[in-house]
C-alpha cells in the first residue's frame, strides 16, 4: 500500500486491510485544487495513505494542434497553456523559431520582451501568493495581492492589448512599442510594489499560524529534486540554485544583474520565501531595464510566411513555475512537423504523491498550493 505507484490507479474499492480506510475523491471540482485537477486520496481518518493525481480533464491536444497550424498561428495557443505566464510561453516560442530561422532581434525589442515578461512573472507570483494563503484559510492576503496585480494587469493591457492571455511577441520583435507613459507608469508600479512588499511580510510571513502551517511541511530533499525533474521555485526552495535565465541565458538576461533566491529548507515556507524574493528580483531587473532601454526598431525584417529550414531545435525559458522547454521539428514547410512541450508544472506535480503520503489532508492541500500548479499547463 505504501509503495509508490507510477501510474494512477483507480482502486475505488477500499482495501480490506483496514476497516477505517476510505477513498476521498479530491476534485476535479474542489476549491483546493485550483482547476480541474483530480486527486484520488486513499485515507485513514485525516491521514493520507496514497495520493494519485488524475490528469487530462483539460486536455486540448495542444501538441497535435500545433502540427496543423502555421508557425505564426501556433503563437496564440502559447497563452492558453500557462495562462498566468503567457509571456514566458510567447518568449519560448518566438525564440525557438528565431533560433531555427536565424533572425536577429533588435535590442529594444529584447528589452521590451524581458520588461513585460518580468512584469508577468510578478503578477503570476502575486496570484500564487494569494491563492496559497487561500489554501491555508486566509482570505485577506488574496485580495491585497489582487489589488497590486490589478495595477499590473492594467499596465500590461495598455501595451499588449489583453489582460491575461497575451499574444504580444512577434518573430523578430514585439507587437507594439512602449511609450513614455508606459515607462512612467511602470516606474510608479515599482514604487508601489516596493512599498507594499514589506506589508505582505508583516501580514503573513511573521504570523505564527502561518509559520506552523508551512515550516517543515512538505519537505523536498535536494536528493529528490533531480529524480523528479523539479524546476523553478520548487527546486530553488530545496537549495538548488538552478535558473534557466542564468544557466542557459537567453535574451538580455546576461546583461542584467540579479540574484537567484535560494532557500535551504525545502519546505512550504522555503518555496514561499523564494517566490517573494523573486518578486523583489524582478523589480530590480525592471529597474535596470527602465534605466537602460535603448532606442531603435522593435521589429526585424522577417518574411511574411515563416518556413524554418529542415531540422530541429529546442528552447528553454524560465517561467514563474520553472523550466519550460519547447522542442520543434521542421520539415521545411510552413507547418511544424512536431512540437513537444516540457512544462514545469507537470514535473512539479509528479512529486506530490510522494510528499502527500502520510500527511494530514490540510497539509496535503498546503503542499499542493506550494507547488504552484497551473492545471491547463499540465493537461495542455
Amino acid at each position, binding site marked *: 500500500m505504501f509503495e509508490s505507484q507510477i501510474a494512477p490507479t483507480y482502486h475505488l474499492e477500499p482495501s480490506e486491510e483496514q476497516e477505517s480506510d476510505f477513498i476521498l475523491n479530491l476534485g476535479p471540482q474542489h*476549491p*483546493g485544487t485550483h482547476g480541474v485537477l483530480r486527486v484520488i486520496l486513499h485515507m485513514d481518518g485525516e491521514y493520507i495513505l496514497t495520493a494519485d493525481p488524475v490528469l487530462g480533464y483539460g486536455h486540448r491536444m495542444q501538441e497535435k494542434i500545433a502540427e496543423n497550424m502555421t508557425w505564426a498561428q501556433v503563437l496564440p495557443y502559447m497563452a492558453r497553456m500557462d495562462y498566468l505566464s503567457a509571456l514566458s510561453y510567447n518568449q519560448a516560442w518566438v525564440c525557438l523559431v528565431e533560433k531555427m530561422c536565424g533572425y536577429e532581434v533588435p535590442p529594444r525589442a529584447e528589452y521590451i520582451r524581458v520588461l513585460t515578461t518580468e512584469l508577468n512573472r510578478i503578477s503570476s507570483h502575486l496570484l500564487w501568493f494569494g491563492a496559497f494563503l487561500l489554501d491555508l*484559510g*486566509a482570505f485577506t492576503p488574496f485580495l491585497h495581492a489582487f489589488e497590486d496585480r490589478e495595477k499590473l494587469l492594467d499596465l500590461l493591457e495598455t501595451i499588449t492589448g489583453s489582460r491575461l492571455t497575451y499574444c504580444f511577441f512577434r518573430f523578430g520583435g514585439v507587437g507594439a512599442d512602449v511609450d513614455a507613459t508606459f515607462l512612467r507608469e511602470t516606474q510608479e508600479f515599482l514604487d508601489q510594489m516596493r512599498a507594499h512588499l514589506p506589508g505582505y511580510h508583516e501580514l503573513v510571513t511573521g504570523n505564527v499560524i502561518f509559520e506552523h502551517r508551512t515550516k517543515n511541511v512538505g519537505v523536498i530533499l535536494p536528493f529528490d529534486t533531480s529524480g523528479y525533474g523539479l524546476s523553478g521555485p520548487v527546486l530553488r526552495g530545496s537549495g538548488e540554485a538552478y535558473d534557466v535565465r542564468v544557466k542557459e541565458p537567453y535574451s538580455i538576461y546576461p546583461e542584467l544583474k540579479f540574484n537567484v533566491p535560494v532557500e535551504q529548507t525545502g519546505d512550504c515556507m522555503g518555496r514561499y520565501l523564494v517566490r517573494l524574493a523573486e518578486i523583489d528580483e524582478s523589480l530590480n531587473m525592471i529597474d535596470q531595464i527602465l534605466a537602460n532601454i535603448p532606442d531603435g526598431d522593435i521589429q526585424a525584417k522577417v518574411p511574411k510566411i515563416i518556413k524554418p529550414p529542415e531540422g530541429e531545435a529546442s528552447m528553454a525559458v524560465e517561467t514563474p513555475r520553472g523550466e519550460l522547454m519547447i522542442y520543434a521539428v521542421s520539415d521545411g514547410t510552413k507547418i511544424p512537423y512536431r512540437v513537444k512541450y516540457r512544462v514545469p508544472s507537470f514535473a512539479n506535480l509528479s512529486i506530490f504523491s510522494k510528499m502527500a503520503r502520510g500527511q494530514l489532508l*490540510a497539509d496535503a*492541500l498546503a503542499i499542493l498550493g506550494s507547488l504552484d500548479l497551473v492545471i491547463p499547463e499540465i493537461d495542455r
Partner: protein
Amino acid sequence: MISEITLIRTLLSILGITVVVGVNAIFVVWFERKVAGHMQYRLGPTEVGPAGLLQTVADGLKLVSKQIIFPQSADKPIFILAPIICLVPVFIALVPVPFSATWQAHELDVGLLLVIALGLLNTLGILLAGWGCDNKYALLGASRAVAQILAYKIPLLLCILPIILLSGSFSLREIVLVQEQSTWFALYQPVGFLIYLIAITLETNRSPFDFAEAESELVAGFHTEYSGMMFSLFFLAEYTYMLVASAIAAILFLGGWLGPFLPGPVWMLLKIYFFLFLMMWFRWTFPRVRVDQMLSFGWKILLPISLLNFLITAGVMAAL
C-alpha cells in the same frame, strides 16, 4: 395554572428573541461583510438599501426561494433535523441572557449552566449534519467538530468557574450585579478572559478555527450538501451562536449592561458587537490552524493555564 401575565410575558419574550435573532443575523452578516471589505481594500455591500444594509435580506430571500436538494443516499430525517438542532438551542440560550437589569426574557438561577449546556448541542447538530448527508467531506468536517469539542470546552468551563467563585452565583443577572458592586471581572481574571476569547472563537467554529467547514480543505465541511433555506439555518445558527457567546463574554467579564451615560441595553449591545468585531478581525487576518495543532494547543496550553488560573483564584479566595 398559567396566569395571563405570564402568558403575555412568554409570548413577548418569544417575539423579542425572534426579533433579536433575526435583526442580529441581518446586521452581523452586513457588518462582517463591511469589516471584511474594508480590510481588503473593498467597500463591501453598497447597493441594496442604505449603505447596503438590506443586502442580507436580499440574500436571505434568494436562499429561501432556492430548491432544497436532498442527496439520494442521505438519511432524510437526520438530514432535516440537523440544522434545526443547530438553531433551536442557541435560540433558547438567549432566554436567560439579560440585556439590562430589567430586559431579560426569564431570570434563571442556573442561567449560565443552561447556556453552556445548550452550547454543547450545537456540536450535535454538526455531527448529525455530517453523518446524515452521506458525504465524506461532511463527515470529516463533523468528526473534526466533535474532536475539538473537549479541547475547548474544558478550558472554557475552567475559565467560567473562577467567575462563579467570585460572584457566588450561576445567575447571569446576579453575576452582573456583583460586578456593579466591585468592578469588571476581566480585571480580576485577565488570563481567563483571554482564554475565554480563544475558546469562544473555537466554540463558534470561526476562523482561524473553522476546521468543520474548512473551505479549501473540505469544500464546505459539514454543510457541503445543504442548500437553500437549510443552509441558511446553519448560517443563522452560527451568527446567533456568536451573539450568545459574545453576550456571555460581556456579562462574565465586561460587566454586562453596566456603563456610564448610555442606557443599559446600549452598553450591552456595544460590548457584544465589540466581541463580534474581534471575531471578525481574527477571521479576516489569520490563516486556518491545522486541526491537530489546535488539539494540542487546547490540551497542552489552554487546559493547564486555565486549570492553574482556576486553582490560583480558588486559593486566593480561600486565603482571603
